[in-house]
Structure formats: structure tokens, C-alpha cells
């Protein structure tokens, strides 16, 4: 899951910023390219990717600064989503 997620996140950011020299630990908000509109695009993209909503407590910008941070967020939310039926049961 992590590799697929990471690849799709990379592709999304690279398509959004043509020519960007992207590494997994590059802070894309430090480049002056990304704005608040893009941060909400990232929220929607991750939600579409993992088919679950990003909860309000995960809205910190630090979760969206790098490919590594976004991958970790997506994996964390996916794991929480998988645990949910058992917890409910």
C-alpha cells in the first residue's frame, strides 16, 4: 500500500508542478509554489486515494509538507479505517 500511495502522491504533485525536482522529503510548501488552495487539493486527493475522509485533527500543514508525511498520513488513516469494523463490533 505504501509504495502505491507514495507513487500516486508523487505523480499528483509532479503533474501539478511541471518540472519540479521532487524528492520524498522535499517540503513543497517551502518552495513558494504551493498555496492554501493546493493544500485543500491535497486533502481531496488523499481522500480520493484512500476512500476515507481526513479527520479534522489531521489537518495540520505538517501532514502535507512532504511526500513522506502524506504517505504516512494516508497509511495511518487507512489502518484506522481497517480497524474500525472490529472496534465497532
Amino acid at each position, binding site marked *: 500500500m505504501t509504495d502505491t500511495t507514495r507513487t500516486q502522491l508523487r505523480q499528483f504533485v509532479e503533474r501539478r508542478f511541471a518540472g519540479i525536482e521532487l524528492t520524498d522529503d522535499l517540503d513543497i510548501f517551502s518552495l513558494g509554489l504551493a498555496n492554501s488552495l493546493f*493544500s485543500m487539493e491535497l486533502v481531496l486527493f488523499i481522500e480520493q486515494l484512500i476512500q476515507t475522509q481526513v479527520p*479534522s485533527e489531521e*489537518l495540520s500543514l505538517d501532514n502535507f509538507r512532504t511526500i513522506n508525511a502524506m504517505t504516512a498520513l494516508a497509511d495511518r488513516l487507512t489502518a484506522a479505517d481497517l480497524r474500525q469494523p472490529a472496534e465497532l463490533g
Partner: protein
Amino acid sequence: MSELLTRPAATVRSPARARFRAFVDEFVTPVAAAYDASGTIPPPVLDAVSAAGLWAAVLPAARGGSGTGMVDFGVLHEEVGRGCSSLRSMLTVHSMVLHALDRWGTPSLRERWLEPMLSGQVLGGFCLTEPEAGSDIAALRTTARRSGSGYQIDGLKQWTTGGQRAGVLLTFARTERGISVFLVDGSDPGVSRQPVEGMLGTRASMLAHIRFEGALVGADALIGVEGAGLGLAAGLLDIGRYSVACGSVGIIQACLEASVRHAAARAQGGAPLRQHQLIQQLITKMAVDAQAARLLCEHAGSLKDTGSPATLAATCHAKYFASTAALRAASDAVQVQGAAGCAPGADVARYFRDAKVMEIIEGSTQILELLIANDACQRLGERGPRPEGD
């Protein structure tokens, strides 16, 4: 051709349009000019909106709302905008606040406010703009300082649509970790309001300047996390921008319908105006702009319904085109009617004043030009776009 002009293309995809249109024709259009003159929308109209379940249209039935998707939400806001931009503006901000509460609010906050907001018993106000902060949200000065287990909010907000009667105020304020968002009880003794009257347009939208002086909220009034305000603003303004874009389509449609009626009824030079080619040119521009703007809105709404991140850019495009086209259409509609279009109480004069406001709110034309151009340059870069799936 006649069907294209009288039955918008989106009708095919929105069976709800006929219901929304009938509501506006019965409850809104006949009284919009009078409410514009009086500067207020009286309770009976707001109650009719409640009875029709329209305050809750931004949320689907599964979340307690009355909505059937964002395309239909857009159609509703187009139809209301066709009748009265002031009422549409109040629907806009209420929808933004309701969306924020439902999507990002704490459980206790939702428990307290969701039901009365869905019914329209409590209306929402969106408190972002300040004397020193408008398009530059990062410059806002309102503060939210830790106080006991919650926060104390101090500052001045301006031009709050519906601010004269809003029961809850979605308020952007600076905290230790950056700009944050709070839902403030409008009855808090630390909240005071100064009505704003005599605006150029949307005169009945009950604007107010709102002062926060030691307004207290609990920690659960925080929307999202501290410092998430700019991202939340982008997401919420996207909803507002979409509504304004759709409302602008409604203005264009109203201008088109008024112009066609007038051009058929009034004769000059021995022939109805509609036979004069330069009048035909004006009507042509309105008809094509209405369709083009409607399709841009429908595209943005469809992307919202699928959860696509592309909706944010699509909404900027729709709002930019629709709001600028609305001002062109309103100017031309006044031109078609001549002096009658400039008279007190003339519908097209109201459309003209309201259309100018559409170019300013929820992202001015110039801010959208910056966003759209930057977005295009960033996507295309020097090498051109990368193909999908690359």
C-alpha cells in the same frame, strides 16, 4: 434554438431545477425589488426557505441535509440568484458555515448547532474580512487567546453577509500556531453588531460589521486544529465561490429573460427592438454567456460530487467567467431598456448593482486571475503538460 434559451441545458441533468424555479418564482422574484429597497429580507421569506428545506441543501440526506449533490446545489443557487442575489448571498454563507460544521466540527459542536442550522432556525455568518485583511487573509488581526479551558476572541470583522441576524459566526482568528477557525455563538455578550446599509449591491443581505470584545468559546469551538485556518479558508471559500458562480449564472439568465421581454414589447423606428440587429447582438452575448457559465458551473459541481481535487481550479474558472459575464450581461440589459433600465426599482438596475458585487466577493476578479494564471503556468511549466498516467 428556442429550447436552448428557455430551458437551460443543465435541466436535463437536474430534475430539481423545476422545483427550485417554481419556488423562486412564487416566493422570491415578486418581492426581490421591494426587499432590495428596504435593505432586508423579512422573516416570511426566510421561513419559506426553511419550509422548502433549502438551508440544508449543501448536505446530503445521509448527513441530515436536503441536498442531492453539488450539481443540484449549484442549480438551486442559480435559480435563487436569478430572483434575488441578496437571498442567494445568505444561502451562500450559511452553506459555507454548515459545511464547515459538518465536515470539520467537533462532535459537541455538531450536536449543538447542526440541527438548528439544517432547519434554518439558526443562520450562519462567515467572519473573515477585516479592516486590514481581505484578499490577504494572512494579514488578519483578530486574536484568539487561550483563556481557561477555551479561548477569548477579540477583533473587528467587516462586511459579514447576514451578520445582522446570524446566530453562529464562523470566525477566523490568530492563535499561537497561526490562523485558526472558531464557531462562535452569536449571542455571546462579547459579540456586537453594526448594521451596514446602503451598499451598492446585494442590499438586502443584512450585512453587518461584527466586533468581538472578550467573546469566550470553549476548546470544542475550534474547527480543525490550530493553524489550519488558511487551508480551511480555501476549502470553504471554494463552496462560496461555487455558489457565487452559480448565482452569477442566475443573474445572466435574469438579464436575458428581461431583455427578451423588453425587446419584444418595445418598438422603435417602426419595429420591435428585437428586430434591431444591435439589440440582437446584446441578446446573443447574454444567451451564449449564460450557457457557457452554466456549463462551467456544472463541470465544477460534477467534480465536487466525485470528490476530485480538480474541482478547486474548476470553481475558480467558473466564478471568474460567470461573475465577469454577469456584469457584462447586466450592463447590456440596462442598455437594452435605456432610461427605463436606470429607473428606481428597475430589475435590471438591481442586477447591474448586484453583478458588480459578484466580481468582488469570494475571490475578486483580480485574485482569481492570479490564481488561474499561476495554476496554468505551474501545470504546464516549460515542457508542457505531462500526459495522464505518466
